[in-house]
């Protein structure tokens, strides 16, 4: 079976065989750093991560009591600092 697919970097590759074989083009090493930086958060993104979130309620309550501050609670149905 001959398959033709467009792949990641605008090239076209052809290969034969019935077994599943990845058609994604290899990543050129020269593009590695650029891609790595492109995928990670950019300056100005993920502002929420600039907030020093506590994840232990008791710690948060003790800190709030000691400092005379209220607690801002963000409740999420997933890990708010991880995958959500």
């Amino acid at each position, binding site marked *: 079976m001959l398959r033709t697919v467009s792949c990641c970097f605008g090239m076209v590759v052809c290969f034969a065989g019935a077994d599943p074989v*990845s058609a994604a083009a290899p*990543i050129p090493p020269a593009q590695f750093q650029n891609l790595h930086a492109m995928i990670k958060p950019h300056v100005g993104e*993920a502002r929420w991560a600039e907030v020093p*979130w506590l994840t232990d309620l008791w710690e948060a309550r003790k800190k709030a009591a000691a400092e005379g501050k209220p607690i801002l*609670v963000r409740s999420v149905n997933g*890990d708010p600092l991880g995958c959500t």
Partner: protein
Amino acid sequence: MEGRALFFDLFNPEGIRLVKARCVPFTRNYLVPSGYAGDEKFFQKLEAGGARLGNSWFLCTASGKVLGTNDFALRQWLAAWDNLPEAERRPGAVNIEDRGPFDPKNVPPQPPPGALILKVYSRGLERDTTGQLYAPQAFRVGVSKTMIKAEPQRDFLWLTEAEWRSLIPPQPIAGMSFPVPVSIRNRICRFHLANMTLGFAPLWSREEIRFAEFTLTIYHVSSSSICLRLDGAAQLASAPNITKAKRGYDVALLGFLEYNVPNKSFRRFDIVAVGDDWGSFASYGLDRRYPLGFAFELPRNEAPNQLRPPRGTHDYGLAGYLNTGN
């Protein structure tokens, strides 16, 4: 991810300054208990006071008085705090009761002793007219073609001590190539190459790894470091015939790892994965193929509580997440 960006984008620099200066910020996954009965009792008190405990924001006192909830209106909520009697606000005014014994049942898993933790970011990408990849500012989704911010999703990869140590051969020689251990390869494929940029698409099953080949090649050896290059490719698809699969990800990987010989630890573990994803968010109206990228790296200066359990441990439990050796 976009969902998080929608909510947390309420924070502009002034909002962040306000939170840091005037609040103790606390966040939690309300589906996962802390393991302390006292914490649950406190949340029940908040709920009785009007706080919504699901996907929500609210401001409360350390004693459990709700000052504002639902629509995010931090300045108004802080005004409610300012209006409390001084006796309720001053430092040390509230005594925090003991929260009781710890019950480890159903709490988030901890990484195995000696585990290597990697940060994993994923982002939906686009191609320009020349085929070059770029990171879009927003995605258009749904029947309404709503534009939502394209913020990267994040997750964490755990490798057991035995696994990460197995990446360095006993007698490393430049030019030596060998396959990445199956447990690592499969864990990356199943749990860390799933599209989560718009929320929770399903993780991949073992059967959905239609093809995967990850190879490490040593390209530098000295008394101080061993450098390795990772080359990989994988085809993840909901059907054996990828052309008929409703969902799939056809991906290439490239990585550069550096092992610190004197310290017996990795000081670089950078990996990029890029390929076309389709079908993961068809229900969102995003039914086209589009490039999806992942970036892996070692944590740098994160506080311990910022290193979260992998999503796969939530879906499959710790044992299911780690048991990827076949």
